[in-house]
């Protein structure tokens, strides 16, 4: 008998604008001791399956068809209280963000003991013993000490371990893990995945692993189901499916995943997904009035960063005991040449974004210098010089939802820098906006719309259009695609690649994602704790990394091609 069997499950969310079908006729089976991956892009309905099994669909969602059998029993026929008994005792669930999954006011021990007592009806002391054993099992060091601590005293990875321990309290048979490692750094992600694998073996757990990350799927799961817009596209054993995808969607999805084993000239387009017009290749150069870096002399580097440091003093925060300054950027130097794509890679908190903000003058370095075309751009500058630099140095941000002002029309967003620098009058600016929209594959009607009418990928194009509006020569991209689905990521990266190759635009490309770095960059700096630990040609890093940290990062990188 299979652990869980889902037959033709449909979930719908009725709203006044009609019924949104989150899941349509989804079927899957899971055996004990098996990890089943659910993969798909946002809106595919992969998380909804987990919620449906748990009976925790958010209002007004409802199961509109199909059945879920758990150990042969139909979940749909259970009463609310029986379902509640089933949760926790037979099915456990862990969520994406370990930072918010724990009650901040209760100690870890209290939460564990409460759950254990509730399900296993143990005495307090017995429950505490089990809690300690669980903490030990999920590899929390010094469980006797940690058990009395509060969630805020744990790091992200440690918290996710506590979350797993909590989910395991009553020895469930099924664990639903909803993007369990998305919020974590690569190194921590590897450990958590390893832990899950170990627990599966030891307890004969069945795991439904929901993720958008093909690498995670490849390395962790036994079987995989690919979902697209609430429907199952393809399902099968992981190795087989990844090696030979049958459905066109799966194929394009896989091809869109940046490869870490070799550099490709371009990504395969998955354009039929986004509703945008096909974007094979855009001719930017034809109408580019800005400087073309291809024809620049290379006497001086475009950007020269020398020994910059920046510390953040904990600003009289009520939580801080001592105001020990944290060094966000510590003695960093590098140069970026004309037409080069310079990558910066590192885990969260390594200081890579701070560098972008130092170059764009959002922060002032404590020490060190930054020269753009041989002229300092740090501290007080002459107005003319400052404006020129600002115009030539533009930035693209990570989050397409917050990087453009939701209260402004698209044309005003894009025209704002043009008008600000007085490059054109309002009419001229709008004409330029129209051209930019055209380049980036957006309809002309987009100009008078507001950002909320666009998808994430389209918004990121608007963001790029704004950056290009002033004809920059240096474009800083701070994790420009990490909030996007892979297929959209491919489109955006293609656009950036085209820009670079056609205009010879100089770029600083910041990312935590090594495969993306490999696809995009000529040179890479690896950062750790504010310092550059390795600075080398991109290809060299991936073939012969020197520093041990770079090596470990490369090793831990989940990869479906390996």
């Amino acid at each position: 008998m299979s652990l869980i069997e889902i037959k033709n499950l449909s979930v719908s969310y009725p709203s006044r604008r009609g019924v949104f079908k989150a899941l349509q006729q989804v079927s899957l089976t899971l055996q004990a001791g098996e990890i089943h991956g659910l993969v798909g892009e946002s809106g595919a309905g992969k998380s909804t399956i987990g919620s449906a099994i748990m009976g925790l669909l958010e209002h007004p969602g409802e199961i509109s068809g199909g059945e879920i059998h758990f150990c042969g029993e139909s979940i749909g026929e259970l009463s609310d209280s029986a379902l509640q008994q089933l949760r926790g005792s037979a099915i456990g669930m862990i969520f994406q963000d370990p930072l918010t999954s724990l009650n901040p006011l209760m100690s870890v021990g209290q939460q564990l003991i409460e759950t254990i007592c509730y399900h296993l009806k143990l005495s307090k002391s017995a429950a505490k013993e089990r809690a300690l054993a669980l903490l030990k099992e999920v590899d929390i060091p010094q469980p006797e000490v940690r058990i009395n601590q509060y969630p805020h005293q744990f790091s992200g990875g440690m918290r996710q371990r506590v979350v797993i321990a909590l989910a395991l309290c009553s020895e469930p048979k099924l664990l639903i893990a909803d993007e369990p490692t998305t919020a974590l750094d690569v190194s921590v992600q590897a450990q958590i995945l390893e832990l899950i694998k170990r627990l599966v073996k030891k307890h004969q757990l069945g795991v439904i692993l929901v993720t958008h990350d093909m690498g995670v799927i490849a390395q962790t799961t036994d079987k995989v189901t690919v979902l697209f817009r609430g429907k199952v596209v393809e399902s099968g054993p992981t190795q087989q499916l990844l090696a030979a995808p049958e459905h066109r969607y799966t194929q394009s999805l896989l091809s869109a995943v940046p490869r870490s084993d070799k550099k490709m000239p371009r990504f395969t387009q998955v354009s039929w997904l986004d509703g945008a017009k096909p974007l094979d290749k855009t001719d930017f150069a034809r109408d580019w009035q800005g400087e073309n870096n291809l024809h620049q002399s290379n006497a001086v580097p475009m950007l020269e960063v020398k020994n910059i440091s920046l510390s953040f003093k904990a600003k009289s925060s009520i939580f801080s005991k001592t105001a020990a300054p944290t060094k966000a950027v510590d003695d960093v130097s590098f140069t970026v040449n004309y037409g080069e794509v310079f990558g910066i890679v590192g885990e969260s908190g390594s200081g890579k974004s701070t560098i972008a903000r130092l170059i764009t003058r959002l922060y002032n370095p404590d020490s060190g210098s930054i020269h753009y075309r041989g002229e300092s751009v740090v501290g007080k500058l002459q107005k003319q010089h400052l404006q020129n630099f600002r115009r030539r140095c533009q930035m693209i941000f990570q989050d397409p939802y917050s990087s453009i002002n939701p209260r402004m029309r698209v044309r005003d967003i894009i025209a704002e820098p043009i008008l600000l620098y007085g490059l054109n009058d309002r009419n001229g600016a709008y004409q330029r906006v129209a051209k930019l929209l055209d380049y980036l594959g957006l309809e002309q009607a987009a100009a008078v719309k507001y950002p909320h009418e666009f998808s994430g990928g389209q918004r990121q194009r608007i963001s790029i259009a704004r950056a290009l509006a002033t004809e920059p020569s240096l474009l800083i991209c701070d994790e420009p695609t990490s909030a996007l689905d892979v297929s959209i990521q491919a489109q955006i990266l293609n656009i950036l690649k085209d820009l670079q190759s056609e205009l010879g635009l100089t770029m600083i490309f910041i990312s935590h994602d090594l495969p993306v770095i490999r696809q995009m960059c000529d040179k890479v700096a690896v950062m750790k704790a504010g310092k550059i630990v390795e600075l080398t040609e991109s290809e060299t890093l991936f073939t012969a990394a020197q520093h041990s940290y770079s090596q470990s990062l490369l090793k831990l990188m989940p990869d479906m091609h390996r």
Partner: protein
Amino acid sequence: MEQTNSHTPTAEQMIAADNTTLIKRIMDSDIFYSFIRSPLIVIAAMLCLTLIFSAFFAPWLAPYDPFDQTTLSLWAANLPPLSTDEDGLFYLLGTDNQGRDILSAIMYGMRTSLIVGLAAVAFALVLGTSLGLVAAFFGGWIDSLLMRIADIQLSFPAILVALLIDGVAKAVLGTSQMESLAIYVLILAIGLSEWVQFARAVRAAALVEQRKEYVQAARIMGVPVPYIMLRHILPNVVSPILVIATISIAVAIITEATLSFLGVGIPQTEPSLGTLIRVGGNYLMSGEWWITLFPGFTLVLLVLSFNLLGDWLRDALNPRLK
């Protein structure tokens, strides 16, 4: 950096109105949908509009002009509702102790109350919003200072602040000037006691907005600070301002009424609702209930309709309660 992907389509749709299809957009928006679906709110809105309308058009709608001393007849004083005086004039809601028609007095009184309420809130809104934006944007000691002032202000509730300002103004201006300036002093006093709400809400919302990348983008571009605050941040913190403004109007009207009740508000010759209630209150025990209860009832309806609208707006504009 923390990412707050608070995607707020309702609020956006409401504010982000395209001129050409404004009505269509409104009709289509979630907030209008939520509005039309709650009968109580529709009633409250209609009531509110009716009251505001009858207040502002009182000179044309009211049966008598209660402020026209020349037409006032003391002999028609204290008539109960539905009476006719010696000259054959009819009074639907009766007359007060000076022979004023209660219905007309209510309409004119409501006008005074509304003017004070709206002006005080407008004043508080402008002051609070700008201080909130400044505090959020500049941070540091400016922020600390402003928020500390807000703290102190908070320890003295509206009534107390208003009483004090009124007292000080009386002392500084002298009695003769005070009379003509009473309404402005009242607006200032109530406005000053309400700005903290705006400042705090705007500051909190602006702090969130300011961490968003579109503001960083603007700063990288070198957009001037006032422009960033007004063009970029302000439109994105409109929802809390709107909610607080609606509720503040209710509070301001009640505060004005209370001050007038305590005798430090609007002079009795051009009474607001509060003054009418205060004067009428003296006749409650003697059986001339209409002098105080009708204005009282009107005041409650007016305040209640604003409160209902504000309360509904608060929920309807809260993206997290969708």
